[in-house]
């Protein structure tokens, strides 16, 4: 039973993550007055891509081919350390939140290297922008998690994600309301930046000069692209479940009920992304660092408040 509980979130995330992309697409379509693609469209896309062959440019090396695989592997590994509701993660150790941030960084490093490996000026620009965004998003993420950990620790958690996140509850909001609110805003900023959504990036654009994430994967096709899309969906889930653990701290006696509520919260996060993308324009690229520094500053203030 314990094994089942420990693997449950990983299996659930692996199955349901692409659904989040479908929810975002449907939300945007509803705002635009369209019906939109079916919710299961991302699954169909993945199946279609996996059935294709891959084409590799002769100017690329093993780095290009390793990019999607290492990226997906890193994100799956990160997923193993993330709990859902009070359902524990598959693995946990004190300080694993740093490992999660590092694994996300590893995925970014390899997708950037793969983009540079093509020698295309567009992909080089994309990699440079992604590196800049990542360098600013990572400290904001770590600081926000540290603030959340400190808030939870006063309620008796330990320094792993499985210790911190399930320990947050309604009582934590009463004790540390302002801290957790600021942590939430900081994490939302990181979430939108890390997942290449508006206002930081625009996943729907076809304009190669404005893209960040999309332009880096232009040369990937077939199963490699499927790995990238699936990895992106899992990343959405990983960071989303951290936000949900803080904002929807429903703590009933049953871990399964808590997990189901948290999964419902994930859908709300996807709807939130859809609403953001339907109601505002992208930031000018030069303003993105300010956006992320803002998130980091919120996290620092939150940390200062809780350590006061």
């Amino acid at each position, binding site marked *: 039973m314990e094994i089942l509980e420990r693997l449950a979130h990983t299996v659930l995330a692996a199955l349901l993550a692409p659904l989040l992309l479908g929810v975002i697409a449907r939300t*945007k379509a509803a*705002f*635009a*007055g*369209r019906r939109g693609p079916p919710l299961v469209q991302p699954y169909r896309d993945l199946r279609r891509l996996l059935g294709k062959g891959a084409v590799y440019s002769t100017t690329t090396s093993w780095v290009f081919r390793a990019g999607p695989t290492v990226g997906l592997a890193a994100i799956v590994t990160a997923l193993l350390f993330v709990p859902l509701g009070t359902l524990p993660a598959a693995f946990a150790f004190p300080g694993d939140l740093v490992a999660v941030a590092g694994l996300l960084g590893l995925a970014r490093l390899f997708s950037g290297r793969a983009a540079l490996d093509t020698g295309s*000026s*567009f992909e080089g*620009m994309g990699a440079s922008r992604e590196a800049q965004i990542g360098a600013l998003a990572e400290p904001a993420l770590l600081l926000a998690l540290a603030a959340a950990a400190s808030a939870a620790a006063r309620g008796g958690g330990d320094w792993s994600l499985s210790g911190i996140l399930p320990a947050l509850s309604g009582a934590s909001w009463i004790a540390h309301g302002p801290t957790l609110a600021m942590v939430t805003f900081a994490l939302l900023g990181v979430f939108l930046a890390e997942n290449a959504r*508006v*206002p930081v990036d*625009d996943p*729907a*654009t*076809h*304009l*190669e*000069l*404005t893209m960040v994430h999309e332009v880096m994967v*232009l040369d990937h096709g077939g199963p490699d692209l499927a790995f990238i899309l699936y990895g992106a969906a899992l990343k959405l889930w990983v960071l989303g479940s951290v936000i949900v653990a803080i904002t929807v701290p429903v703590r009933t006696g049953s871990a399964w009920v808590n997990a189901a509520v948290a999964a419902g919260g994930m859908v709300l996060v996807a709807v939130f992304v859809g609403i953001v*993308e*339907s*109601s*505002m*324009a*992208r*930031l*000018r*690229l*030069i*303003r993105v660092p300010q956006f992320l520094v803002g998130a980091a500053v919120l996290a620092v203030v939150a940390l200062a408040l809780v350590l006061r």
Partner: protein
Amino acid sequence: MATRLTFTLRNGEAAPLGEVPLVAPGELREAVLRSVEAGSRLSAFFGAPAAKGVRLHAVLAQPEDGAFAILAADAGESFPSLTPACPEAHLFEREIAEQWGVRPEGHPWLKPVRFHRSYRSGTDAWGRAPGEPIEPGVTEFFRVEGPEVHEVAVGPVHAGVIEPGHFRFQCEGETVHHLEVSLGYQHRGVERALAGGPDKRTLHYVETLAGDTTVGHATAHAEVVEALGGSAAPARAQAVRAVALELERLANHAGDLGALAGDIGFQPTAAFCGRLRGDFLNLTALLCGSRFGRGLVRPGGAGFDLDEERAARGSERIQAALRDMAGAAGLLWSTSSVLARFENTGRVTREDCVRLGLVGVAARACGLERDARAEFPSGIYRVAQVPVSTWRTGDVFARAYVRWLEVQRSAAFVVEQIRALPGGLVRSGVGSLAPDSIALSLVEGWRGEICHVALTDSRGRFARYKVVDPSFHNWQGLAAAMRGQQISDFPLCNKSFNLSYCGQDL
């Protein structure tokens, strides 16, 4: 030296070629420079075949008296370039060099425009051998040197389904120091094909000079033919043409506002305007059965009449579309994340705008009151005015906002014209064209002024048919707007100009 700008034509007029003053190339240069300094603009500058080599023709639009001064000069093998003193002649002179194999001496950046062989066999301004292949885009590009400088080449194949064009950026990090636009991929040889006309193909060529400006180009052509044929279109036809011209403006402006929103990821206006563009196109279809106005404008009048029932229906639909448009466009001006992207992006100063000779929306967005409908009215615009819409700032916001102002004024104009449509026929006959004559027409299309100049031979056929699409004036404006900008803002700047590739490449 006297300026000798003694010969003028009004918009949509013809005159015997012999009346055009023939001067030496140096005198033509002086006269044009002086006139441009006094506030005229170069609407067309082109070569035409003459008994001895190539004869240059300069058409200067003089807003102060609403007339066009025309001068001619025999070029010989070379002529003194105007460009160093008059940058708006830049592309015209490159075009002359490429088409006729004569060199503008002193031109600072003499490169081919469309990458084709000279019209006069055996001549080549660059001394290329007759068998040497000429490939579009294969040429020297301006380079910025430096340790941090990198070059970004975009196109001619793009990620979206758009026309082919090559853009060469000299960047330092994300900042663009220089952009060079290299086109010619869409060159079809339309101007050459039009010579010897008019024939059965002529109208089809004209309607597809730039497919999104069918009515604009067809109107300019019809006015040229009517001038040479010594007739005028009936008043009712002129009103129907103006309605179609404004509907074309409405459809394209609506589409552009939506596309501008799309480029910054602002979904509401993008989704709304995509639909509204279709509504306006369907209104043109209501008029003539074609969403792009094909077959509507004909020399001597219009191919279709507007009966009362359809007029009423059209008027209703346009007012409904305008109401929706007010909501969709209003979101752009009230959303701070949109304004943050539009304001101060891609700014062209008023001085640069004048020097580069920009036209249309791009010029009016710099505060210039350049609008052929007001300055050089022809057709129904002589009696029914559309107020000129301008904005001062010269940035993406200004180009977007001028479009919205024009949408409102064009819609009001169309409703008014439909309500008070003159009676009578919509088509009259056009006589045979006057031989050895010159005629010109300037029409304010949705993008800017469209200039058609026709020179006839002794049999009344086109010896030379010159087309100047507004894009030909404005591509240089896009390059100027990108100076010092972020390269990620290029698609937005590009869309704010929304220039035609095929209209420039002809």
